[in-house]
């Protein structure tokens, strides 16, 4: 049973436009949500996070939106740049520190920025 779902395996966006990556979750115990970026043959790099008490968090070009009632979050990247081409993972956790459940990850979305 997949608790964190990224339904788009890939997404192609033109350079300079907005990239929107989506993520759905089923476990209502999740309180913390994170986005990671991963290049091939490298470990994931933390991008941005949000807790369930907020509905929006911004950091530079990256904004994460959380809709708790819909159990949905999205990552907006504006403007998209060639270096943003990577696989993006959505992750969720019911508590700080990860705990025995760790972070639960989606399967990832491969973002391709077209020149």
């Amino acid at each position, binding site marked *: 049973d997949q608790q964190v779902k990224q339904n788009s395996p890939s997404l192609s966006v033109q350079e300079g436009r907005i990239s929107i990556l989506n993520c759905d979750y089923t476990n209502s115990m999740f309180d913390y949500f994170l986005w990671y970026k991963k290049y091939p*043959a490298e470990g994931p790099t933390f991008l941005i996070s949000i807790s369930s008490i907020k509905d929006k968090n911004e950091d530079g070009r990256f904004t994460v939106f959380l809709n708790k009632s819909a159990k949905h979050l999205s990552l907006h990247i504006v403007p998209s740049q060639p270096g943003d081409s990577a696989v993006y993972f959505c992750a969720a956790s019911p508590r700080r520190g990860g705990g025995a459940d760790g972070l639960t990850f989606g399967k990832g979305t491969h973002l391709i920025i077209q020149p």
Partner: protein
Amino acid sequence: DVKVTQSSRYLVKRTGEKVFLECVQDMDHENMFWYRQDPGLGLRLIYFSYDVKMKEKGDIPEGYSVSREKKERFSLILESASTNQTSMYLCASIRYSNTEAFFGQGTRLTVV
């Protein structure tokens, strides 16, 4: 900056070998994790440790064991490597009071 270092970037091992993957973090984090990443499956948790000598199974612990003798070091052990353990292995650490996990660069293990 937090640094999580995995001992090898690439490894090739034979079926039946005992394999050790080492991970060291330099930020005094309490919690450490081992994940594996496979195409189309995302990251799956193998084992978690919240203190020295303490461990808990994750989602896919079969065929693996772990060791944490020092706070900064967390080792993943493949007791008898099999071809279905060919994968990218990722170590992560996190402070118990935080939400953001830091990952190592990954070890691409091939079992032949």
